[in-house]
């Protein structure tokens, strides 16, 4: 018996599949570094201003939007321009022409890193900042559609920069484009009128507003359509196909038309009653803040507690301390200064300073021209300062010198509680715009 020798079966080695060109493009060159630079730019900017935005979604979204438009947009333009000139610098333009792929497909693959990485870096930074805001906010929601529109705008600027880099043969093209981007986007942000809402850095600081629902998608259509039209006009061959670029161009023009029809001042922003709703504590007098600052209510109540105790039962004393859009609405309401200016995240950073500001607001009458004059004007002003310092001393390093008011402060402190209440009643009844009415302690 003979045995046949058969060679052992061996699996055929699977041929290694070459990576997709887009994947290779995304991993090489300046693209990933641009993403890192964009993310760092936003994160460092936001870190430096954390107390200003980490308590309200509107503040966080607004500063992210400004940083994206004003800083990341020009960076994406310049980096895209550099990336666009790569093949010319390397002398591989003709090599690319020999590749069996359509010019548009090659262009889109090459543009990929210039558009993707700035947007990815921005979205990463947005996510970090929103997560850092989340634990401290009271009401509302982050305007994700606006942040997505910012990412699309930055990607579009990267793509436009890439095209500029392909067209312009000048070594200064990239830095110049970046600086022109800073200037143009910065000017657009400060322009009055509806055109400012076309720019990706238009600022809006109003805590009780939300954008109209269509603004985010339409902004995306405006910027993405512009970039796509430019890409099609440049990359489509033969030339007769370039007419297809009119489709995204029409979308862009339509979107820009919608944005330009927005009201001149408020643009896409509309009041949101859910954000400006009053939230009050159970104290006497009540302290009322808007829903967006609800987390600060315990701190504000505690800061005002010494003043409330001293004013309790005094005729003319506040019935409610109110803060927000509507201001004092009922008899006995007294306006509070903005809580967010003195807040860090969801805590009041300087309760004594806030109390001092609240007392200043309590005793500030709306004077007319000619009021506050006369022989007793200086004395009345000094007494006003003395009463404020007696009720809520200005913290060290803030406010005016109180040396001149010290005799009055000493006299107020020396009074019995009943005398102090009687004096406060007379002081609250007086119009501080008329110096002769201000009672001397």
């Amino acid at each position, binding site marked *: 018996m003979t045995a046949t020798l058969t060679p052992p079966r061996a699996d055929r080695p699977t041929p290694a599949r070459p990576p997709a060109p887009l994947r290779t493009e995304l991993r090489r060159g*300046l693209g990933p570094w641009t993403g890192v*630079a964009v993310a*760092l*730019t936003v994160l*460092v*900017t936001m*870190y*430096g*201003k954390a107390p200003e935005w980490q308590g309200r979604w509107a503040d966080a979204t607004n500063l992210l939007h*400004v*940083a994206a438009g*004003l*800083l990341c947009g*020009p*960076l994406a333009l*310049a*980096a895209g321009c*550099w990336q666009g000139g790569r093949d*010319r*610098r*390397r*002398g591989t333009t003709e090599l690319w022409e020999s590749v069996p792929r359509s010019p548009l497909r090659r262009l889109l693959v090459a543009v990929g890193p210039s558009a993707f990485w700035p947007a990815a870096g921005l979205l990463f930074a947005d996510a970090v900042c929103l997560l850092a805001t989340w634990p401290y906010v009271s009401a509302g929601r982050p305007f994700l559609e606006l942040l997505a529109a910012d990412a699309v705008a930055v990607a579009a600027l990267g793509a436009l920069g890439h095209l500029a880099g392909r067209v312009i043969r000048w*070594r*200064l093209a*990239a*830095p*110049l484009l*970046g*600086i022109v981007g*800073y*200037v143009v986007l*910065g000017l657009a942000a400060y322009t009055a009128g509806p055109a400012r809402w076309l720019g990706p850095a238009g600022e809006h600081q109003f805590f009780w507003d939300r954008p109209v629902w269509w603004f985010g998608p339409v902004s995306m259509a405006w910027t993405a359509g512009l970039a796509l039209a430019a890409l099609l006009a440049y990359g489509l061959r033969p030339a007769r196909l370039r007419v297809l670029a009119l489709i995204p161009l029409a979308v862009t023009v339509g979107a820009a038309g919608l944005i330009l029809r927005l009201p001149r001042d408020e643009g896409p922003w509309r009041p949101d009653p859910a954000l400006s709703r009053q939230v009050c504590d159970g104290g006497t007098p009540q302290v009322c803040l808007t829903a967006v600052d609800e987390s600060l209510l315990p701190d504000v109540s505690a800061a005002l507690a010494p003043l409330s105790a001293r004013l309790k039962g005094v005729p003319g004393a506040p019935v409610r301390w109110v803060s927000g859009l509507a201001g004092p609405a009922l008899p006995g309401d007294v306006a509070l200064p903005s809580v967010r200016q003195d807040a860090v995240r969801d805590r009041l950073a300087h309760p004594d300073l806030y109390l001092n500001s609240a007392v200043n607001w309590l005793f500030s009458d709306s004077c007319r021209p000619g009021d506050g004059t006369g022989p007793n004007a200086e004395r009345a002003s000094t007494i006003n300062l003395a009463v404020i310092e007696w009720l809520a001393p200005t913290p060290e390093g803030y406010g005016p010198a109180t040396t001149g008011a010290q005799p009055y402060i000493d006299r107020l402190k020396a009074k019995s509680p009943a005398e102090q209440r009687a004096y406060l009643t007379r002081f609250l009844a007086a119009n501080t715009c008329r110096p002769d009415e201000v009672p001397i302690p």
Partner: protein
Amino acid sequence: MRLYLRSRGLPGALAALLGTAAAAAWAAWWLVSLPDFDHTARLPVVVLGPLLAAGVIGTSLHTPSDELDRTAVRAWWPRRLAHLLAPTALAVGLLALAVPGHAEEFGAPAAVRNTLGLVGMAASAAPLVGARLSWLPPTFYAGVVYLAAPSGTEGGAAWWAWVTRPGPEGEAWAVAAVAFAAGTALYAWRGSRRTTGEA
């Protein structure tokens, strides 16, 4: 000499510096003439003008014949030094003239300091990432600190945000001077990085 100047594109760079200074002078005048603004509004001019000048000077450090240059018998560092210092001196003079008055805020001293510091950053970048990309580190730095910088000096802002500080601050000058000295020395010593295959 003429061949050297032309091979580095220095005539174009000098024209670009003149254009930068002219644009900066116009922008400074225009900003101050706006109804709600005063001389303190010139901060963007004393940041962006020197930034563009740094880009112009940094990209001019590119040499198209690096390998050939390195075979020369003479030492290159004096030429590199002159190549960096001469356009920098011109840029410093032009940009100082572009923002006249108010030296205590954003006037000539701030423009001079920022030009020196940002040129130093670009010169440092040339041996590391190549002369043609040397504009990127100063651009990135200016972009990062422009909004992040506080209005006061808290948090050591005079050190890390020196480009946004008013003219007379010593700390900001110290950082800019160190950046310029380090960049000049590094570039004179090493020259620009060879970027293979890039014309």
